[in-house]
Each structure stands twice: as structure tokens, then as C-alpha cells.
């Protein structure tokens, strides 16, 4: 079933790139720690879009990309779980979820 795949690789990658940058912007500017974490997830998703795209449209299409994406999703889940737990702990101590308030360490 070798035909042409209808969606151009570049478009998919561009979608990933834009998503990556939006995530980055969010990570840099959002004030709530949760949303910052979420923005970072966007960046990971961008990478996943790349991986799946390449899995289908790369130089040697194969399943590895999808597997990699699966691992990424799992890893992201673990990471965000820890992140959220950390957030709760911080909230308990500092009564805040704002990133700006994390300022115990300076200089």
C-alpha cells in the first residue's frame, strides 16, 4: 500500500515546532506552577508529534518512533505526578502555587 501520504512532513513538524514554542512561552510566563508544568507537557507533546510523524514519514519509517512516543508519554506522566506532588508539598509549606513565590534561594 505504497501511495503518497497526504499530509506533508513539513506541516506536521511545523505544528510540533509551534507547539514547542508555545509551551516554552507558557513555561516562561505563566504564574501558576501547575500551568508551568502543563506548558512543559506541551513541549513534550511537540516532541511526540515529531516522533510519530517521523515514524510514518521519516527516512526509514518504522514503529520505533511510536514506541518512543509511548515511552515519552509514560515518562511525562511520572514526571508530572512528581511535579504535582511537589506542588502540593510546597503549597502546604508556603500556601502558594505561584512560581514567583519560590524565592527562598537567592544569589
Amino acid at each position, binding site marked *: 500500500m505504497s501511495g503518497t501520504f497526504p499530509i506533508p512532513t513539513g506541516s506536521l513538524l511545523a505544528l510540533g515546532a509551534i507547539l*514547542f514554542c508555545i*509551551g516554552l512561552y507558557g513555561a516562561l510566563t505563566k504564574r501558576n506552577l501547575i500551568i508551568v508544568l502543563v506548558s512543559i507537557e506541551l*513541549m*513534550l507533546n511537540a516532541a511526540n508529534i515529531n516522533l510519530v510523524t517521523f515514524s510514518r514519514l521519516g527516512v526509514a519509517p518504522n514503529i520505533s*518512533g511510536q514506541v518512543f512516543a509511548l*515511552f515519552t508519554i509514560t515518562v511525562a506522566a511520572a*514526571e508530572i505526578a*512528581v511535579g504535582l506532588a511537589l506542588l502540593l*508539598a510546597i503549597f502546604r509549606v508556603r500556601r502558594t502555587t505561584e512560581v514567583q513565590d519560590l524565592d527562598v534561594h537567592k544569589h
Partner: protein
Amino acid sequence: MPTTDMLHQPYASTMGPLIIVTVTAFVVMILEFLFRRGDRRWLAGISLVGVALALAAALWNFHHDPAIALNTVVVDAYGSVFSVLILISALLVLLFTLDYSGGTKVASEHTYLILFAVVGALAMATAVDLVTLYVGLELLSVASYVLVALRRHSARSLEGGAKYLLMGAVGSAVLLYGMSFVYGISGTTNLIELGSNGFTMYNNYPAITVLAFLLMLAGMGFKLSLVPFHMWTPDAYDGAPAPISAFLATLSKAASFGMLLRMLLFAFNAAATQLFWWAGVLAAVTMVVGNLIALPQRNMKRLLAFSSVAQAGYILVPFALIQTSHFNDWPGLFDSVSFYLYAYTFMTVGAFAIVYVVSRARRSIDSDALIGLYQRSPWLAAALTVFVLGLAGMPLTGGFIGKFYIFTDTIHLHRAWLGVLLFVTSVASFYYYLGWVRKIFQREPVGDIQPIRASGTMNVLVGLCVLGTVVLGVVPAVLLHPLQGSGWLY
């Protein structure tokens, strides 16, 4: 994609340490759950035994021909060198925690978390697959985030953890994004396959190759705290429990360097001469900024953090040399990296340990707490002097030989400016390292002097570190000789 015979793989000779540490981790975890009450320091004992066994296994691997298991885990001499290093630092850190958890109450789960992190680290050192490397890295990282934040009621600890986590996550996103491109232009995640079609990759997609390389370098830069990705370092080190700071500075860094070397070189070997210039840029910036920023620092842990930033810059120097070297020359570069890492590990763990002892005894983390240390405890004073002199690169310590080795590399490979920069910034670092020494030997008015006593474990730890630092400085052949045989076949 070849199917794999799961049964007939050289597990023992490749994954031995990995498996031993994993098993130990589980055992400790389960025992931890089972015996919730009372002093659980003996768990650390078990983990020490486990790590020691793993270390034995890793050393034993040296005598094996390189082997690969499951297309993923390879143990060549190079992998062994890093595994041994990781396990040695794990051993030291565990010793450290033994004392630390005796002195300060922290969540007792750190023991198996450290072990899990070690598993991740070992995977980073031995895997030849991007996915495995990534997962290993994340295993190490996630465990580290938790470990940093382990003093759950201390805002410093939690915030350090949060900052590490946020930046670590961004870093791994960047790394992953880079990896995705590598996969895209090569079609494989396996480093060995990547190595074999590197030329095509670079010739067809030069821009993407460079992009992927830089993204991966930057992503690893977060873990290695290279400038400008280093800014979490002081905060995390400052907030983390002392042994965890040592852990981050040594074990985590060693594993990341191992991964960086293997990953970048396999993936980009063909384009090495075009790409690794950027590592030189990062190394230079890191050395300069790391040392400058440490100059006015008074908080001892933060200073050690910046010191570790600067040291990472030194270790990165050989990477830059890949640009001008032949493939045949690479093993020599790895040797210099690993030698320096060994020396660095001993010196850094030792320094953290003594800083911990002193700051606890004097209830201050300010470097003024060191004043009069020589009167309070000549042994600790002498040991700390050895460590910082080693970090500063004084002869008869491993630090000197390591720097000299890296320097000869830079001259060999026509990047003398990097070598000179290395030593020039080292000279700048004299200022803060020897500033400590000055305080150590500064005399305090008599009457104010209460001796500082370290626990037995701590003395053993410090003793081991002194031994390591000095042995590497006096008889470097101990390590250089095995290194000479190392190289990689996969």
C-alpha cells in the same frame, strides 16, 4: 528490525550491576514498607552491600569481551569505566546518607530512591539506544527531583526540588525534541545503527543534524549544569540534603557525561568535526562564568555548586576536541574525561561531606564557619584542604593530573586556547578555593574553640575520598592503566 532471542543474551556480563542494584532497590523498598518503625539505618547497610556487589560485578565486567544485550545494553570497557565510577559515587553517597539520616530527620525513602537513580545512571552509562538513554535519564532525574525535595517541611528543599524539576523537565523536553529529529533523519533510535549511517544523515540533512545536535547538547546541558543552563544548580544544591547535593554533583553528572559522550559521538560521529565546536563554546562559557560567579560566593554549598558548574566546563573541554580529532583518537579523550570525573567525584563528595559536618557543628553554612577549623579538627581541615586544592588543580592530587591530561589533549588537538582558558580560569578559582583554605587555617582566639567531631562513617567517607584524591594524584597509573585499555567497540 531483527527479532531478538530473549533467552540467550549475555545478561550477566552486561546487565549484572544493573540487575543487582535493581534487586537491591526493591528489597530495600519492600523492607522499608514492612518495617515502618524504628531506626532503619540498617537499610542503608543493605543498599551498601548491594552497591558493593554491583561494583564487584562492574569491575568483573572489565575482564569480559564487550557484549551487547537486547540490542540495548552494552558493556564495553568504556561502559564499565562509567559504571564503576557511578557505583563508587553511589557507595560514597550512601555512606554519606548513613550519617546524614542519623543526624537529620529526612524521609527515610531516600535509600531506595538513590538506588533507583543509580539504576537510571547505569542505564545511561551502558545503553546504546536513545529510548533507553532517555528513560534512564528520566529515571535518574525523577528520583533526583524527589530526593532534592526530601526534606518535606523545608521550603528550601522543596523549592530547590521544584526548580530542579521545572528546569529539568524543560531540559528533557529540549533533549527529546532533539532526539526526535535524530530519529527522523536516521530512522532508528539505536546508537550502533546511528553510528553506521551517520554519514548519510549528515550529508542529507546538515541543518537538521546540527539542530538536533545542539538541542541534545543543550538538553544534556541542563543536567550537566552547563552555562547558561546551570541556574538551577545553586538553588537545588543549596536546598537539597547534603548527601543529595553530593549525589547531584557527582553521580548524576558522571552519568550524564557518560550518556552525552556516547550519545553524541555515536549519533554524530560522521559530522563530529563540524559539530563539536559548539561544545567548545559551551565549555568556554561554562568555565568562565562558573568561576566568576563563584568568586563572591559565601554560602559553602552554593559555592560548591558553582564550583561544580565550572568543573563541568573543564570536563566538557575534551568534547570540543572531538572536532579536530580522528576517530582513533577518541578513546584518549574519553580517558581524560573519565579520569577527571573520577578525581572530581572523590574531591567533591569529600568536600560536601566536610562542609556538611562543619556547617552542622557550627550552625552556619557561611564559609566563615570554616574559620579555625584547623584548630577544631586538624583531620577535617587537612582533608578539606586536600579536596579544595584538588579542585583547584594542585599537584599530587587527582585534579592536577586530570587537568594536565585534558590540557595535553587540547594541545594535541590544536585547541590550546581552551586548555589555556581552562588553566586561566583555574587560576581565578584559586581565589575562592584557597579562600577556604585561608579560613581553615585562620586562627581563632583561644577559648572559642570547640572541637568538631565527625562520626565514624563520616571519617571513613572522608578518608576514602582523601585516599581517592591522593592516589589519583600520586599514582594515577592505577586508573590510567585500565583506562588505556578502554575504548568502545559498539
